[in-house]
Each structure stands twice: as C-alpha cells, then as structure tokens.
C-alpha cells in the first residue's frame, strides 16, 4: 500500500507544481530549462497517476506494479471476494484505461498531425513559389501576414506574399532565423504531447494553461536562438508588425482565448531583457526534472 500512497502523492505534487508553473515568470528567463521541467512534470504525472491506481489494485500480490501486472496477466485471477475487492477492481480498470488513453491519444494525435502535414505539403507543392529574394523559403500569394514552419523530415519554412511587403529585409531575416530555430530544434515534437493531452482532457483549465505556457516557452526559445543571427530590436518590431497586421477578420470563437499578451510578453523580453537564470539554478532544475522523471518508473517496481 506504500507504493500506491507514494505514487498518489507524487501525482498530486506534479499537478500542484504544474499549476504553480503556469504562473511562474522565471521560466521566461530560461525557456529551454522550463520546457524540460514541463515535459518531466507531464510524464511523471501520467506515470504516477496510472501507477497509483494499479499499485492499489495489485496490492495483494505484493510485487509492485510491473511484476504484479505481469502476474495478474499470467494468472488472470483477481480474487474478488469482499466489497473492498470491487474497489480494487475499479482501480484496475481505471488505471488500465488511463494507460490506454495516455498512450493512444498521442499516437492518434501524431497520426492526425502527419496527415494534416502531408496534405499541407501537397498543396504547397502546387501553389507555393520560390522567391529569389528569400532562397530556400516557400512563398504563398496571400495578402495577410503569415510565417510558419511545416515540420517533418524535410521541414519547410513558408511565408505569405503579404509578409514580404510588411517587413523590412532585416525583420524578415529575424523571422526566418526564428523559424529556422523551430526547424532545427523540432519544437513540433515538444508541442505534440501537450496538444494530445489537451484533446484528452478538454475541460481541464490546468491542461489548457499548461499547453499555452509551453507554446509560449517554445516561441521564446526560438526567439533566443534567432538572436544569434539578428538584433533583438528587429525581431521585436517584426513581432509587433505581425501582431498588428490583422488584415483578416477574426472568426468568432476560432482563436480561443490564450492568444492575448503572448506577443507583448515576447516583445518585452526582447526590448528589456532580464538576466538569464543563473547556471546553478538551471542545473538544479535540470537535475530535479531528471530525478522526477526517473522516480515514477522506479516506484512502479517498488513492491508493496
């Protein structure tokens, strides 16, 4: 019963930490480290929640989650004798369902994402053109402002024709450096599990906030990387021009509520940079993330 209690406590700790992290501002001073912490919290929360349910259900085996589950699957004997056992049975079903959901959803989301990208790539091949002014970038004839990266084995950076008119050449360079950072660091893979979790728990404010936080941190990480090739001011003005370019009417309800202030937060960070988080702090957070992420699998092995 100890393993179940510890795992349940761990899941609670992760949830509370995630909730606190959605308000934290130090994360903006070390986006990369913060992203790692988010990933660790998400993974540990999932493993701890499933583990707590299974550890409780398989407690009579006294062998821990992993070996207990193996024995249960081999013997298929659960031993429902008293009312208390029904509770255990319910925990078993809940634990296995949660496991299935948390494995299946990212896979489904991944498959759907791949399909959407494939379609996008096909269409781009037909309607996008190359522009001598911006080699290696696909240009779509569209008056509004759009700049994005289509990730994949052969990632493509795409901008709209309107972007070419909207930005100066220095600003355009800053935007392209930002998109190149997304490509190089495969930020889409960072975002995928959070998008999947959001789809799994659409009513959860915490999950929604977590996804928004990670999205913003990924943008900030790409901004930081872009600064190696451009000056902060040009990236800031490019962001502001993009933000105010709303040439399109915003469809009702389509954009959600999480967009506000993220542009301004990024601009503030570029124009009035804060000191980066000290290396010692970052190392501590890093170490903490690793310990956290390894704790849950170890607890799955803890007997009793």
């Amino acid at each position: 019963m100890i393993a179940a209690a510890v795992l349940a406590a761990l899941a609670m700790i992760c949830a509370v930490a995630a909730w606190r992290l959605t308000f934290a501002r130090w994360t903006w001073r070390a986006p990369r480290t913060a992203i790692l912490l988010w990933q660790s919290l998400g993974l540990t929360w999932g493993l701890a929640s499933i583990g707590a349910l299974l550890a409780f259900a398989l407690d009579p085996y006294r062998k821990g989650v992993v070996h207990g589950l193996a024995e249960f699957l081999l013997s298929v004997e659960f031993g429902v004798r008293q009312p208390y056992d029904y509770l255990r049975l319910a925990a078993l079903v809940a634990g296995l369902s949660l496991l299935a959901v948390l494995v299946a959803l990212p896979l489904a989301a991944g498959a759907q994402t791949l399909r959407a990208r494939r379609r996008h790539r096909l269409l781009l091949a037909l309607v996008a053109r190359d522009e001598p002014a911006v080699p290696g970038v696909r240009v779509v004839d569209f008056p509004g402002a759009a700049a994005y990266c289509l990730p994949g084995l052969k990632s493509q950076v795409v901008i709209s024709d309107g972007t070419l008119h909207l930005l100066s050449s220095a600003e355009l360079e800053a935007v392209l450096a930002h998109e190149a950072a997304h490509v190089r660091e495969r930020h889409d893979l960072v975002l995928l599990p959070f998008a999947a979790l959001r789809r799994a728990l659409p009513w959860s404010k915490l999950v929604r906030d977590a996804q928004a936080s990670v999205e913003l941190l990924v943008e900030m990480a790409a901004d930081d990387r872009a600064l190696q090739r451009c000056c902060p001011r040009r990236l800031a003005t490019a962001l502001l021009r993009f933000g105010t370019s709303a040439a399109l009417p915003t469809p009702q309800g389509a954009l959600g509520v999480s967009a506000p202030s993220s542009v301004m937060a990024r601009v503030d960070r570029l124009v009035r940079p804060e000191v980066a988080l000290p290396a010692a702090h970052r190392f501590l957070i890093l170490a903490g993330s690793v310990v956290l992420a390894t704790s849950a699998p170890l607890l799955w092995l803890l007997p009793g």
Partner: protein
Amino acid sequence: MKGLGELERSIMDILWAENTPLTAREVGRLIEDRDLAPTTVMTVLDRLARKGFLTRTRDGRAWRYQPAASRDAYVAELMLEALDMTGDRDAALTRFARAVSGSEAEILLKALTELEEE
C-alpha cells in the same frame, strides 16, 4: 526535363488558367517544355487525379481533366491552417506570431511606434 513536382505544378497552372476541361494532348501542347513525352503528361495528370486535385470526364477515347478546386481555395485552406483559424489547436505547424485585434492591437501599435521613434 523538369522534376515531377515541378511538372505537376505547371500542369495545374495551365488547367487553372484555362477555364475549360482539357485532354492530355491539349495540356501537352500548352506546356513550355516541348520535348515532354505525351505519356509523361498522361502519367502526371493521372497522378493529380488520384490525389484528388483534378476531376476527369470521358470524351470519346480520351479523358478531359479539370481542377477539382480553384487555386484560391487551396491558398485559403493553407492560410487558414497557417493562421491557426481551423479551431483545433493542433501541433501541425509552428507559427511565428498570431495577429491580435481590438484593444490589444492598439497596445502593440503603440509599442511599435515607440520602438521606431527611438
């Protein structure tokens, strides 16, 4: 000879420019690259039809091809996704920034003016 992707593109451009369904022979005549084998044009038209970008109708012994949707419709589809206006916030693309509206746009505009004046 151009790559297959490039060829698909020019054939779509031709069919979008002409407002009437064309046969493979007619497409071949309009294509810039005159050395192209007629079978290549047929192959590419067939590929595009299978991908759903062209529809075809029988005309005697030949097929007549026309675009399934306009060029603008495809651009719109791409840009809806690019601007994250499809409603489901998936992780298919990573975007530079979103446009905002209303009072927030005013704040951004003010910041932009300040930055440009400095």
